[in-house]
């Protein structure tokens, strides 16, 4: 089997997840992940795994910039603030799932971009040398950054629970 094909089979889901945590749109994350692998096929990089995540990170960054531009444009277009339509939840379980997800999303956004990036790369299955290679961080600093990022994520998440009066179940 082609090395890239093997990588695709084992890493595609991780790449989609990695992208999803940056663009927050499942469909878009899949589109971008496929674009990443199409580019990998064209470039045939030496270290494909690291390359794939580096390109995914770049695409997500471009996407975020484009989203900011779109948002600005929409703000300009919107003359009067219109009441947001309330979406009726389909089921209580859905609501609970969404709430939990939103809580983690918020906690993640409380991290510095650097800490967040390294935590997401680690969670996507990258090794310390791969993370160091992609982010330019010293190998010895990866552990330090991850230690801080993990601590802050959990702290930020727990703080939300505390302020919401512990409404949501402890996760």
């Amino acid at each position: 089997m082609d090395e890239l094909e093997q990588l695709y089979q084992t890493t595609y889901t991780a790449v989609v997840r990695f992208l999803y945590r940056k663009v927050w749109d499942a469909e878009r994350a899949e589109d971008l992940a496929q674009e990443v692998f199409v580019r990998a096929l064209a470039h045939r990089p030496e270290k494909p795994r690291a390359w794939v995540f580096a390109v995914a990170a770049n695409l997500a960054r471009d996407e975020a910039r484009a989203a900011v531009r779109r948002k600005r444009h929409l703000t300009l277009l919107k003359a009067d603030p219109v009441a947001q339509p309330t979406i009726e939840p389909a089921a209580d379980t859905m609501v609970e799932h969404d709430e939990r997800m939103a809580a983690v999303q918020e906690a993640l956004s409380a991290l510095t971009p650097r800490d967040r990036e390294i935590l997401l790369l680690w969670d996507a299955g990258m090794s310390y040398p791969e993370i160091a290679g992609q982010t330019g961080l010293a190998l010895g600093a990866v552990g330090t950054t991850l230690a801080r990022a993990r601590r802050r994520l959990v702290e930020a998440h727990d703080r939300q629970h505390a302020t919401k009066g512990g409404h949501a179940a402890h996760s």
Partner: protein
Amino acid sequence: MRHIPEEELHAYLDQGLSRSQCVEIESHLAACPACQSERDSIAALRDRTTALLAKLAPPRGFPPAFETLQRREQVQASAHRRRVQIAAWAASLVVAVGLGWTANYLTMKPQSPVLHPVSSPSVSSVPSSPISNTSAAPPTALRQPRKSQREAGQRPPTAKAVSVAAVDSLPPAVPAPTLELTSVHIPRPDPELELDGMWRTLSWDGAQAEAGDQVPHIDGLPVVQVQLQTVEQGKQPLMVVAQQLSSGEVIRTIEGPMGDVSHLLAGHTTANPDSTPQSGAGVTRSDSTRLPQAPGRTDRTMAMQRGDRMLVITGALPSDSLLAMIRRLNAEMRSK
């Protein structure tokens, strides 16, 4: 006794340490209950983080087959190659045709007979062109325009001195469909006109030795063959330069007296089954000089006329790039 720092325990649990570092940490842990407890709490924090992040997963989609991505890549790659090839061709063509050929025309020896009076109102601005690195334009070419202007003053002007047109598989008797300012008339080949001269095949160096800077070509493309025919003593010969695109396609640049060039093109088009009966029979004595055309392929021709001379580029070129090219060339010539 030094306790293990927090980040080292993270790295240890993440398998981010070397074997020797791991051995060191493990031997310390075996003897230090404080570090053991710290390790356990870090392991719990790690698990907690992983569990939190697991909530941030998109709904599971179905990854497309790897072959689908391979096909996508192939389509994109061929489109990219085409774009690069066209861009390279276009860039070199603008330089070679826009300036090189114009300059070459101006440096033609005064004794070269001309069939028709020529006026070149645009030539005076040739030296002002910012392009100066073309190999086809010798420095002397840039000093010529004043003289040309004087000559032009003595001659009745033609309707348009510079014209560029696109022609699809140039039929011998049909005027070129023109674009923008252009009105190139491709004259019907004169059946009486026999091109008796023998074609000679030369190397690039040989052609340059013989015709100097006046060998028509597109900068940056490898030259496959140069063919030359003396039309008349003391007159600039009819030249056909074959060059290869990166795709392997061969395109030809032809320069010569207008009648001879259109004759040659007429001979070329009679190779098409649907075209009119051959009227350019006398174009060549040797089959090798007949412009070849692969079956089922439509060659496109781009013609540029200046006075009695004509420059033609012909080959299997995509029509969109050709049209884009002509627009650029027109803009280029207008700006001069």
